[in-house]
């Protein structure tokens, strides 16, 4: 309707078809690897490599699962990943929102300096800290523990930054009114500030969870036994084997991604905001 009158309906239609074909190709490329995961996970190793390859889901899911559990202890590995990602998310959310609240709603000595250093640290690649961090955890005798994976990134500068940006929207008069009514500072934080921040907390929580669920290089460095491995580390250990069972690997890959995908399809908006770190607001 809004395009120029020079376009005849026919020209319009052919344009439309070209656009849709291009987009459809894009969709197939985006989605096919996920479909292939399902094919691989439900077929014996040989089938995905058959000529022609089998294009339909098979019935080998249970066998692949049993094999996968035998080789990497998938149940334990999923538990490790979930435990680490969830406790990291909860703790980090609390720590970062508290700091964000202080930066947004209070004046105190050193505030601007601390905040500036936090922002500055976002420019430095995380890998610079790997070796000293490793030495710290050797010193503490905490190699191969959950806390070694959880602790280093709890004070996540980007999460603090996002919480501060969002908390600036809280009206100061609301906080003052609560104080006049005799509410303590902790009460104000937990009963007024955090509840009004629910959408921002959801987005930041998703961001933090995804970071830790997918985290690879640091867990690879500090975890050194199979029963402590997280999913990405356990999967990478399967790849290194000379005799690879692709059915198992694809099932492991599917396990690492399917729950997140379901979660994503349900909570699309928060998810996109979360993964992009709130840089997109609709």
């Amino acid at each position, binding site marked *: 309707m809004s395009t120029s009158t020079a376009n005849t309906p026919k020209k319009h239609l052919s344009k439309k078809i070209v656009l849709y074909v291009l987009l459809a190709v894009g969709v197939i490329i985006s989605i096919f690897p996920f479909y292939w995961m399902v094919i691989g996970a439900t077929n014996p190793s040989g089938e995905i490599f058959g000529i022609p390859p089998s294009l339909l889901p098979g019935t080998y899911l249970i066998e692949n699962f049993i094999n996968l559990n035998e080789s990497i202890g998938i149940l334990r590995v999923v538990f490790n990943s979930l435990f680490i990602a969830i406790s990291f998310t909860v703790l980090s959310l609390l720590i970062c929102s508290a700091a964000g609240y202080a930066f947004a709603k209070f004046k105190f000595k050193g505030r601007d300096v601390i905040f500036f250093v936090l922002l500055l640290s976002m420019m430095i690649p995380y890998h610079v800290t790997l070796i000293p961090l490793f030495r710290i955890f050797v010193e503490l005798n905490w190699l191969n523990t959950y806390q070694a994976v959880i602790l280093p990134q709890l004070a996540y500068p980007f999460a603090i930054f996002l919480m501060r940006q969002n908390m600036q929207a809280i009206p100061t008069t609301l906080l003052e009114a609560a104080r006049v009514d005799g509410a303590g500072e902790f009460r104000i934080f937990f009963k007024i500030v955090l509840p009004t921040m629910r959408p921002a907390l959801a987005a930041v929580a998703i961001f933090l969870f995804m970071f830790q669920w997918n985290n690879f290089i640091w867990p690879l460095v500090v975890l050194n036994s199979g029963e402590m491995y997280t999913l990405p580390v356990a999967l990478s250990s399967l790849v290194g084997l000379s005799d690879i069972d692709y059915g198992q690997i694809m099932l492991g*890959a599917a396990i690492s991604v399917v729950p997140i995908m379901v979660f994503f399809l349900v909570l699309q908006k928060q998810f996109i905001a979360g993964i992009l770190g709130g840089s997109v607001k609709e």
Partner: protein
Amino acid sequence: MSNMENVNSEHAQEKTKTKKKWITPKTFPYILVFPAVLLFVVFTVYPVISSFLLSFQASEGGVMSFVGFQNYIRLFNDGLFYQSLINTFTILIIQVPIMITLAILLAVMLNSALIRFNGFFRVSFFLPSVTALVTASIVFIILLDGNYGIVNYVLSTIGLEKVSWLNDPFWAKVSIMLVVTWRWTGYNMVILLAGLQNVSQDLYESASIDGAGKVRQFFYITLPQLKPVILFTVVLSTIGTLQLFDEPYILTNGGPNNSTLTVIMYLYDQGFRYFDFGYASAIAYVLVIIIAVLSWIQLRLGSDRD
């Protein structure tokens, strides 16, 4: 405002009295930031400084001692380090422009008035961004398998020769670029799409009244208006690519013949395979400098033009 603390605390109970003394709007912010600052100092500030100092040290019989610029001198004479830099930059220079161009085109298509079901397309393109890099790389190992991978199968059915994706130095780099592009294009597209939705519709209307076609509108309105957002995605992708690790580690383990060895992979090898902490720290600091300089150049180029 500031006299909260002397609200008749004299007559209050013992418990509230101490509470009032300690937790006031003046002290509370320190309590709030304390955990974050403590963790940040221990696990970020200290390591960043320590790593800098380590880069001037070497281990002699298990004890670290200062050796001046020795690590850096060794680094500048290390062929493998240059190789890792060249590999990383090759991937950067080829992959990032292709991916950003694709992301812009997809975003413009989805923003077009001609297209319906944009929600469906957007979700589909974004889906790869929720997969772990490790998972994405693993799936691509299987898709790109030289003998039995489906990609080669499709190539052979249309009469093309099979490609030795992961075992040939050239194609191994291409494979890394394929995974990275698959994983991140939709992510950048969503950022760009949000930028596009902020471009005023009036600009396009007056342009089409003046007789400018769609292509001209794209180059004279869309691209200039989108410039800050494009710059943002370019800087993010550049920093990300310079830190490439998961994909080459899984897909090719740096091979064949170190053709996909990246800077961070080399750092990892030096630090955690050979436990040469001083040398690995020097690599890290060279990377810090490269990232700082590149980001600065990109931001300068982005703000100076026009």
